[in-house]
């Protein structure tokens, strides 16, 4: 089925029957994920959701090229992924600011790796620093920034590098509730103003429903896709403000549905 997507122009990323098996030192094996297939359209915000330990981060890391699937394959723009590169920029949950570089130099880092000329780097960095509202802090060092600001540096740094897909592994998981909420709205406006395809891992249902155009739900142990579909309550529209999402008809049902899925998986793990 996934091969059909290949012919479709608007398909960006295809994960095809991907599986990952870890082998312990004593020779025993454990299947982390089994037979995972889904695809992401261009400019789509795809959320990988599921209980902890379901392997959704492993899937994301395989898309990044930081891990290799044991079985199956992953294609970006029709090409099989081999190792990490600039086309799949990753934002991690833990802060990844380079402490020895100023905010501005952090944002320029990827462009410098890829041979963008100094003047152009400067312009692009200024643009994305403006988008994440850090222009005032461009000459500050990361140790002077709050957690939310550090995460904004990481997002600007990834965006400025113009990757084909942005991969985010629970990017707001380490932030306090209020900052998290602001960051989600900032993220919504960023994807609206830039042409970006995003694959984001989270276990926060509200976050998934607010930001996601599509939710791929994973079951636990071994992880595999349990449900995959567009976020229907939004009628293919994007919502910019969190309480607007809550007001839409169908939101509560969508949340209830995912919670039930979550619960069923948690009980399975617990039992």
């Amino acid at each position, binding site marked *: 089925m996934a091969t059909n997507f290949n012919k479709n122009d608007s398909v960006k990323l295809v994960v095809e029957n991907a599986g990952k098996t870890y082998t312990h030192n004593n020779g025993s094996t454990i299947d982390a994920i089994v037979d995972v297939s889904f695809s992401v359209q261009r400019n789509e915000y795809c959320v990988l959701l599921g209980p902890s330990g379901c392997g959704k981060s492993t899937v994301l890391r395989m898309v990044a090229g930081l891990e290799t699937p044991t079985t199956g394959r992953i294609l970006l723009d029709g090409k099989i992924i081999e190792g990490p590169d*600039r086309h799949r920029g990753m934002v991690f949950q833990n802060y990844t600011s380079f402490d020895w570089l100023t905010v501005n130099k952090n944002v320029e880092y990827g462009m410098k790796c890829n041979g963008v000329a100094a003047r152009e780097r400067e312009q692009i960095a200024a643009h994305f620093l403006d988008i994440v509202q850090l222009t005032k802090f461009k000459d500050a060092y990361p140790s002077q920034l709050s957690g939310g600001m550090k995460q904004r540096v990481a997002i600007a740094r990834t965006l400025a590098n113009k990757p084909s897909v942005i991969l985010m592994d629970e990017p707001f998981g380490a932030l306090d509730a209020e900052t998290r909420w602001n960051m989600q709205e900032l993220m919504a406006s960023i994807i609206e103003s830039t042409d970006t395809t995003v694959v984001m891992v989270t276990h926060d249902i509200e976050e998934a429903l607010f930001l996601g155009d599509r939710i791929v739900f994973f079951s636990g142990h071994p992880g595999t896709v349990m449900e995959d579909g567009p976020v229907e309550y939004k009628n293919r529209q994007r919502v910019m403000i969190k309480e607007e999402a809550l007001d839409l008809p169908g939101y509560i049902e969508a949340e209830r549905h995912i919670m039930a899925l979550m619960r069923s998986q948690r009980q399975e793990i617990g039992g």
Partner: protein
Amino acid sequence: MIRKPISRTASILWGVSIWVIFFTAWELAVIFEKVNLLLVPPPEKVLTALYSLIVEGNFLNDIGISILRVIGSFLGACVVAVPLGILMGTFATAESFLNPFVSAWRYLPAPAFIPILLMWLGTGEGPKLALLFIGVVFFLITLIMDYTRQVRIELIETSLTLGASQKRVLWTVIVPAVLPNVVIAMRQMLAVSWTYLVIAEIVASTTGIGAMMMRARRFLHTDEIMAGILVIGILGLLFDLLFRWMHRVFFGYLYNNER
């Protein structure tokens, strides 16, 4: 109070008072002749001995030679240890190849090599520099390797997904990330270097602070021996302060929160 901070003044006062107690006890022991005055001279006599060693003797020369020995051998150890440590902490192959060798040497006490070093390198500067080098280089390699391993994997992976090559990750992420800790490792091992210096100069040298102390022993000049100990302590402290200062100057970006 458990884990309650005290004021800076109080902290300084407490810190000074232990020294006051120490010197008072020393002075009293001498005054009431509880100790053999030949073996334990009063503190002020140590200071006058230090003064006359410097003014009338050739002690400054000895101090200079000792400092040069430490700096020379330590620089040599750093030139070898910093690149090797970083490579071993970065590449599993480099670690598998070199670590069994480095670890084995770490367990051999450096002074055990003095006799063979004297036979190989004669009685000049060679054996002293070699002893100091052997004494610190393997520990330095191990420390730097461990610090390099502690560079967070997310930083490396971020750099890779931004399009950096392996070489670029090494030079623009791993090296700058580990450098502050390399300076800390150097600070720790420089103290060890001083220890081996004294051993080398006591066992086989006619120059340097240690040699001066051995000469003084022959003439029962305990005040001069103690003056030597004092100078070594002060030099160790000064070098430690120098490294702390360098850390702050080179890696100011780590201290921003304190401003």
